[in-house]
């Protein structure tokens, strides 16, 4: 009998950070639930840490049937090698047919390590999943900077592994009444399993990363803004629109903007209500990070710029004239809208 036939169930790696389960993991519980229901199998979670039982309960409330809880002082905070070792043991013991992780930085480096020990396939940064007629998982991910979607399958080996992009799948409702099993797992870990230690964490001054991802309005600048100073004007526009500022890879490379404000393939994927692209030509990598915005407004002097092809609204012209004019006119309109 092939290994594939013995494997059953969907397992999700539950990633927590400091005092919360990461949103990417919660979203993945929702998607994992959907897949498990299609297949008619159980959905389990793998939770590694120390003193993290509360997260096990919470994860169940989001939709898990059971949680494999692995607690050990060495697992208190994330580290690739011991986490990888435990994940290999869990997967070999329970043989899920599908193993999912959120495509956070840690999720990606962990998946990228332990799938090698399992000698199976891993699809990175998936944005959709389907189940094929043959009950294989179709792992769908953007390819070539989002211009196309690759449907990846892993038919020969189990588990079928994937990391899934955060903020793409909808977060499931939390049901406080939902019950599930918490299975305590024993693992042997010793100092020899620790090959690197985190000694310090430097948080971003404010949680800018989340702010960009959460923003309703993003005003983003590209190479066309010509100098770092222009972000002052962009910030002003963001302020009148009630939003925040982001940018393309080029402006981050030029150090006009901090890396955590970067939108695009190597930056953040955002889906605000309004995305205002200013002086952004629309390289595929950038489009990959913002094309699902509710409304896209583009301002660029090049009528041929790719960005106009996906814009709802836009102006072809000199941004140095248009942006200040926008700020002025928005301010002008405001009092009229407000009731006295």
């Amino acid at each position, binding site marked *: 009998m092939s290994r594939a036939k013995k494997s059953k169930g969907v397992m999700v790696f539950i990633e927590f950070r400091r005092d919360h389960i990461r949103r990417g993991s919660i979203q993945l519980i929702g998607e994992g639930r959907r897949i498990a229901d299609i297949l008619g199998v159980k959905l389990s979670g793998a939770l590694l840490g120390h003193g993290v039982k509360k997260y096990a309960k919470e994860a169940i409330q989001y939709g898990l049937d059971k949680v494999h809880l692995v607690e050990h002082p060495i697992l208190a905070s994330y580290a690739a090698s011991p986490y990888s070792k435990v994940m290999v043991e869990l997967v070999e013991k329970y043989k899920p047919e599908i193993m999912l992780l959120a495509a956070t930085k840690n999720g990606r480096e962990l998946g*990228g390590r332990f799938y090698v020990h399992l000698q199976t396939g891993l699809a990175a940064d998936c944005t959709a999943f389907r189940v094929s007629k043959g009950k294989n998982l179709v792992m769908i991910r953007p390819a070539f900077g989002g211009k196309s979607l690759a449907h990846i399958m*892993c038919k020969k080996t189990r588990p079928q592994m994937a990391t899934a992009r955060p903020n793409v799948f909808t977060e499931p409702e939390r049901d406080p009444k939902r019950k599930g099993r918490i299975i305590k797992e024993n693992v042997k870990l010793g100092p020899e399993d620790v090959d690197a230690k985190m000694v*310090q964490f430097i948080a971003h001054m404010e949680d800018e990363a989340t702010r960009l991802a959460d923003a309703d309005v993003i005003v983003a600048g590209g190479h066309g803004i010509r100098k770092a100073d222009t972000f002052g004007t962009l910030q002003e526009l963001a302020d009148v629109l009630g939003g925040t500022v982001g940018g393309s890879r080029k402006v981050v490379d030029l150090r006009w903007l901090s890396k955590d404000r970067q939108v695009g393939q190597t930056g953040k994927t955002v889906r605000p209500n309004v995305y205002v692209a200013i002086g952004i030509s629309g390289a595929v990598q950038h489009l990959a990070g913002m094309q699902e915005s509710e409304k896209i407004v583009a301002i660029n002097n090049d009528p041929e710029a790719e960005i106009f092809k996906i814009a709802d609204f*836009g*102006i072809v012209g000199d941004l140095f004239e248009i942006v200040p004019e926008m700020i002025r006119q928005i301010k002008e309109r405001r009092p009229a809208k407000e009731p006295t």
Partner: protein
Amino acid sequence: MPESSELRMVVCIKQVPKAEQLKIDPVKKTLVREGVESEINPSDLHALEMALQLKDKHGGSLLALSMGPPRFIQALETAIGMGADEGILLSDRALGGSDTLPTSHALSKAVEHLGDFDIIFCGEETTDSSTGHVGPGMAANLDLPQLTYVVEVEVRDGHVRAKRAVEDGFEVWETTLPLVITVNHGCNHPREPTLLGKIKARTIGIIDDVNADDVGLDKEKIGLSGSPTVVDKIETVELPDRSGRIYSGEAREAVTKLLDDLEAEGII
């Protein structure tokens, strides 16, 4: 600088198509690859720069390793132009169609074949497949510590201290040599290749190539047969239908029209 502090380093690099030049044929809905230039994978340049800075400080050697068809030599030439000492291209038809699992395997075997290294560098991910799997995969194969998305690194007496960029800040990690480091995109300013570097890259013997047999690869474990995943199909992205009301002309008027639209949509 004492001999023992010198670092033996390897940087794994790849030649990739320039993503911004890739377009979808509007009629055939397929990817237009024709006429697309290629370049060294952008985050590999940051990896090279990080390694070169360590080499500047500690001395030692830096080898650039790539796996792919002969045209990948361009990436190796860039690396040597920047200051790498030599380049190795692992090239074999049997490697064609490898997904990240056999790629990590083959590169790990190549590294073992080439000698003992203190640090194996990779870029955080490539722009053409953007998985970020190869670095951690090599660390798994070689049973080494891994530090990913690294923005700064210091080495002292075999101890490594590195800063990694995560979503909500930076983490400082400590480990020991040898290890695998993947380098965060944009963390430094990669130096330009120099004239003498470019000349060196063209000098016979600086760039060498090895094949699957040379590094002892089992043909079953590489290429299509060694790849667990298959690309079932490529689907062209249908972007959400956009209304596309684009104005031009006099700024004041255009802005008024735009804001009218936004107001009608309830945006402002």
